[in-house]
């Protein structure tokens, strides 16, 4: 799990996922 500092009361987490033969960095923004 990758995280970035909480800004504007918004959380941002990410995970690098393989999709078939490619790599997607899924980044999710959610409210704190």
């Amino acid at each position, binding site marked *: 799990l990758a995280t970035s500092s909480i800004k504007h009361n918004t959380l941002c987490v990410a995970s690098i996922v393989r999709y078939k033969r*490619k790599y997607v960095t899924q980044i*999710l*923004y*959610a409210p704190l």
Partner: protein
Amino acid sequence: SSVDVEQELALNAIRQVLKSKTSYDVLPVSFRLIVLDTSLLVKKALNVLLQNSIVSAPLWDATTSRFAGLLTSDDFINVIQYCFSNPDKFDLVEKLQLNRLRDIERAIGAKPLETTSIHPSSSLYEACTVMLRSKSRRVPLIDKDEETHREIVVSVLTQYRLLKFIALNCRETHFLKKPISELNIISNSTVRSCSMTTPVIDVIQLLSEGNISSVPIVNENGVLVNVYEAVDVLGLIKGGIYNDLSLSVGEALMRRSDDFEGVYTCTENEKLSTLLDTIRKSSVHRFFVVNESGQLVGVLSLGDLLRYILVGS
């Protein structure tokens, strides 16, 4: 003529490529996808879009563990129109969550944004046809988790990405040499324009009613001087100046950040080969067709280009 024959042969070759390649093939080997939880506030989501220099993002509803459509500039246009028709409800916008945007859409009677999606392994040709039908001019690629059957938003294809893929991978584009004036693809009779002093709220109404993504700004001689784009609305809301809608469109454009690349123009003699080459090199949103004196003749959107490549004039 040989130019006609070459054009037809090139179009057929490009269509074959679109039928033989999948949307998965367009994806870079490594890329990021920004997704917004539907419980986020609209104004926070706006910060995320601007901070990441993007104008749209897929939504994720954690309560149902499903993809919940796309956030696009149309949603922000709906919010501005809602504020304009409900002046007493400004504080509501401050607390508006993404999962309430459909209510706003209904409240102003806007046409809902369909969230047609396609599977990443479907053909590019299918992606083009779905995209040309969609109001949002982009199409999410959705797959299912093999273990849990939950939806995965793999990416979102846009018209620009598709045209850029064609420009980068189909050398047949060099043979598209007929002038665009002969292709019957320029929208000229229906182009709505405005002047620099038109109130920005009137321009936003034009965007919404006409389901268009830009309104050209012309001077008293009909010369094109600038363009107000749907994505400019994000800057308007960010500045909180959406409540001061007496603003002229010229003043609203003062919000544009310095990294805006500018409005692309061309003449009626332009060929698709040079337009696609421009798309290959720069992030073009559309082409405005002007005559020798710079007067507006019409507009050529990326959708018009894509539609011509897919089905001809």
